[in-house]
């Protein structure tokens, strides 16, 4: 029987990595990710986890060390946040292009300036196009489950890609939750040893990350794109098997009270759970509202999104980031997914919750009501910023 214990979510991630029996962790501490790597360092130092912990001088080096580790076939983990993810940016692309299945927990944090250590999705959106599989989680249990799934998905021979698990800084990293940890024997069954098909090996030399002149670069990129898209099949298989084993099922797009809903709100990450309270209240008042939670950010689940919203009249999308000069980046993708559909809802875009600003259940209620209003009257702006003092 699985144990259930009250634990900080960051510490739970370290335990998930221990259960996954990681070989190498290379990381640089940054708020709000710090507790994850602090705990991993401690597990390694205490001899509880037989792994190499590589302390490095920057995030750029952290992910670079992870490249080398993954290239020899080590099960590799790192974690970062906000500015740290920015500093490792160029290596983020290299990991996916070289098909190295690193797992990275990103404790989502706003970007400077002004300096903010608090949560939003600006850091995510800056690495949107880097070719990693990207999964959003809403609570501690989902974090642990999806860190385990991330190793399984990334290391699958049909995938071989790095995976980011996005969890909101502070809202998730620093809260204590009752979490059910699977038994080691079950994890061992779920997560077979990492089998790198073409590792760095002196007896069988290979060259990785070599030069790609114009005659071959587009072919490399097409192969990369096809591979990332094809990974969705494996992600679905993994979540199905995880659910069958542990009783918790995940999907690329998940609904909450969407049956017959005419108005849908779409959120990502921990705000979804707050929004659920607002949906409960409004449903109690007889209002036809529901919530869509986007779990799989990359590869983008076009078909699932179209299916999930096709019968709604209004779709309100909350972004926790701005694509400056444009709009909310998630909303812009949702709109592009729906543009050619004959039957689609009106889409309303909000940006809110920036730099750790909370949105309460009553705030979500106001947002939904304002969204309905905009859908009827139209708006002069591409998006509205929610909860900003005028």
């Amino acid at each position, binding site marked *: 029987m699985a144990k259930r214990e009250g634990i900080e979510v960051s510490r739970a991630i370290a335990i998930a990595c221990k259960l996954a029996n990681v070989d190498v962790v290379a990381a640089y501490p940054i708020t709000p990710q710090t507790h994850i790597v602090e705990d991993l360092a401690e597990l390694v130092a205490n001899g509880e986890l037989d792994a190499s912990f590589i302390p490095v001088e920057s995030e750029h080096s952290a992910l670079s060390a992870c490249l080398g580790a993954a290239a020899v076939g080590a099960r590799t983990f790192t974690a970062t946040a906000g500015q740290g993810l920015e500093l490792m940016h160029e290596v983020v692309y290299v990991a996916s*292009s070289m098909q190295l299945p690193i797992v990275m927990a990103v404790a989502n944090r706003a970007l400077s300036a002004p300096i903010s250590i608090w949560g939003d999705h600006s850091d995510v959106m800056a690495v949107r196009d880097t070719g990693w599989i990207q999964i959003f989680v809403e609570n501690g249990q989902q974090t642990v489950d999806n860190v385990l799934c991330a190793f399984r998905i990334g290391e699958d021979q049909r995938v071989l890609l790095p995976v980011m698990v996005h969890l909101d800084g502070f809202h998730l990293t620093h809260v204590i939750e009752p979490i059910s940890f699977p038994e080691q024997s079950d994890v061992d069954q779920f997560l077979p040893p990492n089998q790198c098909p*073409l590792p760095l090996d002196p007896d069988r030399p290979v*060259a990785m990350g070599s030069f790609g002149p114009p005659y071959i670069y587009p072919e*490399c990129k097409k192969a990369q794109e096809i591979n990332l898209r094809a990974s969705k099949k494996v992600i679905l298989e993994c979540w199905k098997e995880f659910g069958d084993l542990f009783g918790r099922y995940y999907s690329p797009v998940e609904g909450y009270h969407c049956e017959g809903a005419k108005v849908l709100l779409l959120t990502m990450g921990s705000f979804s759970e707050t929004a659920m309270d607002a949906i409960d209240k409004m449903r109690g008042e007889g209002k036809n509202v529901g919530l869509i939670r986007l779990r799989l950010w990359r590869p983008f689940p076009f078909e699932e999104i179209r299916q999930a919203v096709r019968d709604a009249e209004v779709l309100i999308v909350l972004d926790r980031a701005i694509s400056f000069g444009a709009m909310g980046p998630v909303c812009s993708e949702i709109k592009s997914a729906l543009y050619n559909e004959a039957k689609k809802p009106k889409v309303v875009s909000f940006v809110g919750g920036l730099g750790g600003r909370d949105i309460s259940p009553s705030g979500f209620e106001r947002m939904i009501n304002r969204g309905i209003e905009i859908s009827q009257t139209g708006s002069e702006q591409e998006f509205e910023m929610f909860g900003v003092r005028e």
Partner: protein
Amino acid sequence: MTKRENEITWKDLNIGCIVTEPGNARQYRTGDWRSEKPIFDKDRCIKCGLCSIFCPEGCIEQNTEGYFEANLFYCKGCGICARECWPQAITMVEEEE
């Protein structure tokens, strides 16, 4: 590589574009980058080999007569050989095509 470079499709690539065949950079014609080529004047050449030492591509070799010549498959036309050749036996000449 069994296929010529312009015949390789995206399906032919190894995972992560890993190269498993050692030394295949030899097949890469860096000579394509060249806009000028070095012309060696045997009357001025003293066979000192300085051009060969300075060539960043390592593509200048001594022939059986002891003179030096550039392998134009690799020569990028950088002109370092011509600049370093103190007897001024090397002239950079614009490529015709």
